[in-house]
């Protein structure tokens, strides 16, 4: 089962269910994933925006475009937000589950929105930007876990490592005091 490299959790800023700003509330992963650490200029809080594609008046909707975009705040005061990725939610059977790519097309993301709880979870898969869609299809088949791989056991933390087969079992502290 494929596991993400990072899991980022966001919560909608406004509690009335309105607005497009989502605040970062936590993440799992080794270190941090820079493209999703987007601080607001004035307060330094990391946030993202989930916007709907705005159609130009008089133009037909572009069916290839994902319905949503993931955006970061502008770098300087007065700057427009930066687009991070489109979010494609292609399956009505799995509403609010989507995919995209960051980088662009370098790293894949899978997204899960919960409108009632006002949460957004972003799973990041490094280096799989071109396979984001296949990853999404695997996810809907249960082939992708939403949790990180469990950390490998730390040697020495729980006693000595087991002896290799065939070797002498020396895991015995020899008495250092010799009675004479």
């Amino acid at each position: 089962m494929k596991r993400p490299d990072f899991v980022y959790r966001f919560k909608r800023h406004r509690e009335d269910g309105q607005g497009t700003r989502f605040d970062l509330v936590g993440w799992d992963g080794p270190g941090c994933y820079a493209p999703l650490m987007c601080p607001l200029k004035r307060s330094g809080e990391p946030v993202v925006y989930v916007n709907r594609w705005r159609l130009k008046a008089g133009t037909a909707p572009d069916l290839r475009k994902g319905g949503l975009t993931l955006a970061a705040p502008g770098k300087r005061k007065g700057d427009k937000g930066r687009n991070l990725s489109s979010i494609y939610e292609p399956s009505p059977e799995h509403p609010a589950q989507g995919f995209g790519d960051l980088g662009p097309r370098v790293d894949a993301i899978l997204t899960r929105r919960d409108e009632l709880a006002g949460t957004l979870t972003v799973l990041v898969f490094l280096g799989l930007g071109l396979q984001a869609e296949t990853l999404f299809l695997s996810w809907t088949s249960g082939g992708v876990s939403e949790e990180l791989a469990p950390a490998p056991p730390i040697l020495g933390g729980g006693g000595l490592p087991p002896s290799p087969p065939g070797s002498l079992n020396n895991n015995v502290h020899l008495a250092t005091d010799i009675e004479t």
Partner: protein
Amino acid sequence: MTDSISVFLPDALAPLDRLAGLRPLRGEGCYLGTLGGLRIIQGVQGVFVRGSLPKYLNGENALPLTRQAVRAALGKLETESGMDLKIGRVYQLETACTLPVNDPPREYLAAWGPLARFKKSTHGNGDTVTLANGGRSFSGYDKGEEMAPEALPCPLAGLYALRLESCWKRGLKRLYGRLLNPWEASEPEAYGQAVRAWAAFYFKIPKRREVCLSMDGMTPKGFERTLAALGLQSLGLDRAQEIIRDGLASGALDRVKASRMRALFRELAKDERITNTDPLTAEIDEKVRAVARFAR
């Protein structure tokens, strides 16, 4: 999602010095060789290029290319061969996608029935099903079986993988309205058309459905149809077609009767009042719809 492509480049010269396995063909100045797995033929009137773009770009074709990746492959081909693909004409095109699935692909393929004007053939103990005629073909097969499951690349590794391939062998002009060069075929509009044609063909294939024997509001006529659907289900669409073919061949049936009987099969197999979509088919339907929706 573009897989194999065949392009004719009129009045072009192939880079013979860069081709591997070069050998002469009949006809003066005609050669055959390969470039990164693509077959390149230098003919009298021009160059023929044929092969799988994902294999050329990535070394395998289990993972479908996005439209941008198709363009990257074309760019690579132009750079490596020195040929201008803009003068080319695409005359065969294969659109394909590998879908990760929960069960062995042969169980999904077993639900496929015969399609009018296409010859259905099954190979490898049901691992491959092909519907083909002179102009088009559509195949479903077990990609994991073909590549060996451990060889499947990253997001598919350890999963069952069902590959659906739609090939336009002739009459590509009918799809696009005119002949396109490879760059035009990878433009959003044309690319989307090919992906939608791939999905449309998949949905055209009649598939086995579950018969639901519910007595709520059942009429004698409805009961009769339900029993007929149950009979058809136990017989199988392929076997039922075979019986009609045999009847026609032996002269027991005339063409009109045979045609009416086939129409009855189709009607019973699709009747939504007495049948439900098979869960395995529903799983694939959802995935095909999802892939075709954005045609990336």
